[in-house]
Each structure stands twice: as structure tokens, then as C-alpha cells.
């Protein structure tokens, strides 16, 4: 599904502040599985996730998605893949204040030019599934932490991506909401989606629904277990 070959990421290359976030990481992530990237702060989890999700490019190495090499793709092709293949759930919900929950959820689908009525129907269905349909017209600043997180999950799913990428999704959730989040992840898995999560929360990487855990330290893979 996703293959990383000797991926390196160096920030501020050639400067005194040069920092190597990833050092020759090679990894294969299976499709239709939940994979957790685990490791302490600064281990390179988020950097790796951003490279897998086509949000940044490696300094060296290649990434293949379904056998197709994607790191060399020109930006407009990469944007297309990013929009259609990946759904992103961030540590913070990153919802845009001042507009409604529904508008926030529909936003990533606007560049694809889908008919607004279809889009609205799809967004409302997603909000209903996560029990926040009644908040669709509310402004995002009125939502609780859990509601905001669920709204961001619906937003990540609006383009029906095959791969869900979640960066420390439970960092700002209490235990009950974290369990609720893992239930949602289980549902994604049952729908055939591939989920990649970075986390150092035991509630996530020890969960029964997780298929493999990749342990990172100092920009290298320390261990990988399934």
C-alpha cells in the first residue's frame, strides 16, 4: 500500500541549525490496517506522517503509494493525490472560526467542484454518523473539545479518502473521548480504510484494533511489531 525507501528529512540543511528528523527510514504499511507510529517527542513521527501524507517532501528517498512513486510528482499531481487519497486529522481540530460546522466540513471538497447539494447531503450524513448533526449550523467556537474533534474527523472524510492520517489525535481528549475516537477508527477499518496514527498514548497503541506498531527514536525505526 505505502512503501518508504531510505527516506531522509533534513531541516535547515547546510546551516548551523541543521537537523536531521528522519534517517534512512524504510517501511511498508499494509492497506486496510491500523498502523501506529509510536515514539517520544522529536522522534520523527509527525515528519514521517507529513511525508506519507504528501504534505512535505523528503530530502532523499522515495515513497510509493500503491506501487506508484509519488515523491517526484509535480506539485499539482501531488495536490490531487492529497485531496483524493488522504484524510487528515490533526492534534488540534484546526477548524476555521467564524463559519459554521457544516461549512468547515465541506471546505476540503470545494476544489473538486462537486455539486453543493450533494456535498451538503454527504456532510450531513457524516455529521449524523458521529452524532453532531444538530450542531451543523453552529459556529465552531461554540463546540466542546470532543465535538470539535468529531467535526474535524467528518471534515477528513468528506472526500472519501482511502487513507486516514491522524497526528496525535487523542492528545487533547479525555479518556472517554479517546475511547470514542478509537471506536470511530475501528469503524473506518471495517469500511476498508487504511489508518495511520502517530501517538505516544498507550490507549491508542495498545488498542486491540491496532494491527501494527512502528517504534521510532531519533529519526530511525527502532522496532516494528504486528
Amino acid at each position, binding site marked *: 500500500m505505502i512503501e518508504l525507501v531510505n527516506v531522509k528529512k533534513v531541516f535547515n540543511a547546510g546551516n548551523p541549525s541543521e537537523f536531521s528528523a528522519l534517517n534512512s527510514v524504510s517501511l511498508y504499511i499494509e492497506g486496510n490496517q491500523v498502523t501506529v507510529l509510536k515514539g517520544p517527542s522529536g522522534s520523527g513521527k509527525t515528519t514521517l506522517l507529513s511525508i506519507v501524507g504528501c504534505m512535505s*517532501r*523528503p530530502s*532523499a*528517498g522515495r515513497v510509493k503509494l500503491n506501487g506508484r512513486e509519488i515523491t*517526484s*510528482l*509535480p506539485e*499539482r499531481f501531488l495536490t490531487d493525490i492529497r485531496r483524493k487519497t488522504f484524510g487528515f486529522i490533526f492534534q488540534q481540530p484546526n477548524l476555521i472560526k467564524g463559519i459554521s460546522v457544516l461549512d468547515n466540513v465541506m471546505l476540503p471538497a470545494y476544489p473538486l467542484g462537486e455539486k453543493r447539494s450533494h456535498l451538503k447531503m454527504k456532510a450531513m450524513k457524516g455529521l449524523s454518523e458521529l452524532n453532531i448533526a444538530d450542531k451543523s449550523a453552529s459556529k465552531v467556537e461554540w463546540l466542546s473539545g470532543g465535538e470539535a474533534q468529531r467535526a474535524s474527523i467528518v471534515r477528513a472524510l468528506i472526500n472519501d479518502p482511502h487513507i486516514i492520517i491522524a497526528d496525535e489525535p487523542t492528545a487533547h481528549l479525555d479518556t472517554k473521548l479517546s475511547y470514542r475516537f478509537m471506536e470511530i477508527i475501528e469503524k473506518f477499518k471495517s469500511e476498508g480504510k487504511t489508518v495511520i496514527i502517530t501517538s505516544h498514548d498507550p490507549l491508542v497503541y495498545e488498542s486491540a484494533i491496532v494491527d501494527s506498531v512502528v517504534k521510532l527514536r531519533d529519526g530511525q525505526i527502532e522496532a516494528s511489531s504486528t
Partner: protein
Amino acid sequence: MILHPTVIANLLAAYIASAMVLYAVFYGAQIIRHWDIQNGHELQLVLERKTYLISTLLSYVFGLQLLSLFLYIFTADNLTPLFVGAMCAAGTLNVGSFGYPVLVLKIFNFIAAGLWLILNVADNQGYDYPLIKKKYLLLAFVAPFILVETVLESAYFMSMEADVITSCCGSLFSSERSTGMGSEMASLSAKPMMWIFYSSMSGTLVCGLFFYFKNRGGYLYAVLSLLMFVVALISIVSFISLYIYELPTHHCPFCIIMEEYHYLGYLLYILLLGAVVSGLSVGALSPFRQVESLQAMLPAFIGKLALASVILFALFTVLVTYEIVSSSLVITYEVVY
């Protein structure tokens, strides 16, 4: 040197273009030598990022290069009052030895820059940079001409002194003179030249349409469009100008860009240059129709270029025909002086 705003604008445009082209050639040479899309090494990834910067930069530089031809002609026309004997841009370009060589180079570089821009658009359609090495080889070929143009243009403008006595266009493009390319073109008989123009234009348009509908004869159309460009330029001097000026002896290809003639020359030259660039690009892109990442879009893109070229040539012909038909000048016999 004459410190006229248009002269400064010309020189600035030339220096900016040359500096940027040199920068692009430096990285272009690395791309030609080291590019390997299968390779995941650091240098390859750096080159992949650099090519965005260079392509974007060159798009603006070559856009400037296209405009600089018209700015140069406009400047030459604008400076006319400063030289004794000059009646239009033709006289100004005759000041010093470099005016006309720079004009020829600018026309050549216009066509080359246009081709590069089209090649760049085609390359950007493929997911694996299919034309990248060809694109930078073309850049390496064009760069020396742009640098020579800048050197000659600097020499031309910097050696320019006011009140120099120069020739007027009536003398430079006169059928009475026996030497000079302008006079040779002006000496060509109007009627036969008119036949040559219309018959070759008909052939070119038919070939272009045939390629557009049947997808055959692309290379032939590219060659014909270049020949047609030359024939059209000669025709402007030989007979088109006569009808526009309504004078059987005035062959100047520059007076038509003046206000008195509603700047018609600019439109005619834009149509011609646009037609030859898009026509030549049909031939330049045809070899890459089978490239895997371009297979889906390139044939349609080449078809559009051919159609654009045909339309531009047709508009040129319509405009010229309108000028001939609406002109008070009637050439019923060969004018011999």
C-alpha cells in the same frame, strides 16, 4: 547614449533576462547531467525542487523576452525625431551597425522563447517531467543568442548619439536601390508576390486544417508555417505596405506601426509571430505524442496549437485582404521607375 525612458526599459529588460537565463542555465546544466527520476538521492530531489523555481522564473523571463521585441520596435519608432533623416523606426535602426542585427536576433529569440514556453506547458502536464531534459537543452541552445542580443543591444543603445544623419525608410526599402535586403524585398514585383502569398497561405491553411482534423502532416505544417512567416514578411515589404500606405513606392514595414496607420503593424506582427510559434510547436511536440505520461493530453494540445496557428494565419490574411480591398491604391500594371 540617449537616456530615454524606453532605452532604459529595453536595457533593463535585456539585463534582467540575461541574468535570469544565466542562472537557469547553471541549474539546467545540472539537470541535463544528473537528472534521473528513478533515483531517490538527495541531488535528484534538490533538482526536482529547483526545476519548479527555474521553470517559473523562465516563464516570466521568456514572457519578458516576447514583449521586448515590441518594446524594441516601439523604442526605435519613439526615438525617430532625434535623428536627422529618420522618418520611422527603420531610420533609427539604421543608426550604428547593430540596430538591424538586434532586431533579427529579437525575432529569432521571440520564436525560441515561445517554443520554450509551449514545451514547458507540455512538460508540466506529465507526472514524470517527460520533457525536462529537452526543455533545458533548448534553454542551453537559446541562452547564447539571448546573451549576444543583450551585448549587441547594449552596444547599439550606448553608442547612439542624437542628431546623427541616417537614412529614411523610403531609401532603405526602395525598389530603386540595388543593394540591401530591404530593397531586394521591395524590388519584388507586387502582383507575382501577391500570387505567391495567397497560394502559399492557402496551402498552409489547408495543411493546418488537414492536420487538425486528420492528425497527419504535423511536421509538414511546422515547416510550412515557418516558410509562410518568411513569405508574409517579404509580402509586407513587397505589396501589403503599398496598399496600406496607398502609395505605389512606399514599402516600409515599420511605418505601419505608427499612429497614422492605427498601429496596424503591431497587430499584423503579433498575428504572424503567434502563428509561427504555435505552428512550429506542432512539429516540436509531435515526437513526444507516444510518451506514456503525455499520451492522454498531448495530441489534443498539439491539435489546439495547430488550430491556433491556422486561426492566426487566417486572421492575418483577412486583415491584409481587407486592407487591399479597402485601399484606394489599384495596381493594374507593374510599376517601373
